């Protein structure tokens, strides 16, 4: 469903140097799969995700989605192709001056859906994410989890085959995180949507993914298949991520011990 061929992304820094966020990388994700991209901050995982729908234009390489080479499409056709790829974000990115229904309708208006069909589809999408009672609320009235549900409904509105999730739970508490992951798993199971989810939390990707790419310094350094009964990470980065170490210790006590030593 998604095929990245040796894609890379370089940025020009304000100082006139070039910074390579993603080294030439290849990745294939099958239809109906839930794939996780995990790594520490600055590993290039969000950039890699954004290369899939060309929010970042790759510096080299090819992006093929559902048999279409996005990197070869002119601007207008790329816009059409993007309707097949929904996306949600860490900070939800909703329109604050539109209601919940208005936000979902936006995606349909953009896709040129006839007015008469928009309302029915908005209703459907809000039912999928369990927000039918918030139709006329403005986003500022919603909790973080509800906002992310609206974002999911909006992303699903144009019947995409793919859903890209950029740190979808990083701004949410653990219970809400669980909630959102359940919604995503449900969408994958019921609608067969292929999901790619970027996270720095191993517990998040373990809860939902079939396969995981571990990223470090712009490269995919390891691919983990969670269908394996025992997951044995090979690289140092994967081991560190798998341990979820930093939050398991009391940092203040640790500092006190260090000071005493």
């Amino acid at each position, binding site marked *: 469903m998604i095929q990245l061929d040796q894609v890379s992304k370089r940025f020009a820094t304000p100082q006139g140097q070039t910074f390579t966020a993603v080294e030439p990388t290849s990745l294939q994700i099958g239809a109906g799969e839930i794939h996780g991209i995990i790594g520490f901050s600055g590993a290039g995982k969000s950039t890699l995700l954004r290369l899939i729908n060309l929010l970042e234009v790759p510096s080299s390489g090819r992006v093929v989605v559902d048999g279409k080479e996005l990197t070869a499409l002119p601007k207008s056709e790329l816009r059409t192709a*993007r309707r097949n790829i929904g996306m949600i974000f860490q900070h939800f990115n909703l329109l604050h001056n539109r209601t919940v229904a208005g936000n979902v309708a*936006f995606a349909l208006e953009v896709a040129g859906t006839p007015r008469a069909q928009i309302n029915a589809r908005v209703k459907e999408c809000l039912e999928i994410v369990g927000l039918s009672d918030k139709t006329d609320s403005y986003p500022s009235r919603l909790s973080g989890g509800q906002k992310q549900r609206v974002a999911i409904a909006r992303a699903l509105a144009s019947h995409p085959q793919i859903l890209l999730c950029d740190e979808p739970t990083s701004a949410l508490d653990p219970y809400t995180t669980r909630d959102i992951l359940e919604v995503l798993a449900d969408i994958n199971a019921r609608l067969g949507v292929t999901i790619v989810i970027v996270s720095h939390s191993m517990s998040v990707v373990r809860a939902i993914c079939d396969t995981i790419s571990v990223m470090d310094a712009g490269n995919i350094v390891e691919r983990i298949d969670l269908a394996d009964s025992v997951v044995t990470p090979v690289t140092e980065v994967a081991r560190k991520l798998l341990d979820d170490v930093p939050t398991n210790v009391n940092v203040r006590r640790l500092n006190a011990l260090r000071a005493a030593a």
Partner: protein
Amino acid sequence: MISEELLSIGPDLVVAIGQTFLMLSIALASALFIGGPLGVLLLLTGPGQTLDRPVLHRVLSVIVNLVRSFPFIILLVALVPFTRVIAGTTIGPLAAAVPLSFAAIPYFARLVEQSLREVPRGVIEAAHAMGASDMQIIWKVLILEARSGLVLAATVMSVSFLSYSAVAGVVGGGGIGDLAIRFGYYRFQTDVMVLTVAVLVVLVQIIQWAGSVLARRLDKR
């Protein structure tokens, strides 16, 4: 006790208020329909924005700054030949509306650019991800999300140009400012002066109040 002179100024005052509104309406309309799109273009051609045209951005920016550098009274005089071509005359409210519009367009363009800049980048990005066109992003994202800021910008501009229109009165533009100069200043009719200032104070209060209320009502953030 209201003096007879002050009463006799009544009809003149009504005409003057009408002239002021005429000048202001033309200037604001030009600002809205020319300055507005110019402001959008200023933003979108900027570095890292949707269109990202550095040269065009720099040119537009320099032009906007250039016009805004002129003290209004100098602009008024400097534009006299241009005004004659456009309005066919250099006196009266219609003629005064020409330099007023000329000043209002870049003024509003900057205000629009600033207001639109407040729209979070992520929201624009989400629209791109949904396959929105540039026009859809301008209307349904940028202007929608910045609408209360835009209303406040237009309010600030209206108040500024109300007082600019009084300056235009000096060179025969008519309007409330002209009345204040002719009767209040040249003829030493202090009561007329006070009256015109009072009218301006009331107008400013009404404009600001209406703008604030509308902006608050439009803001759902």
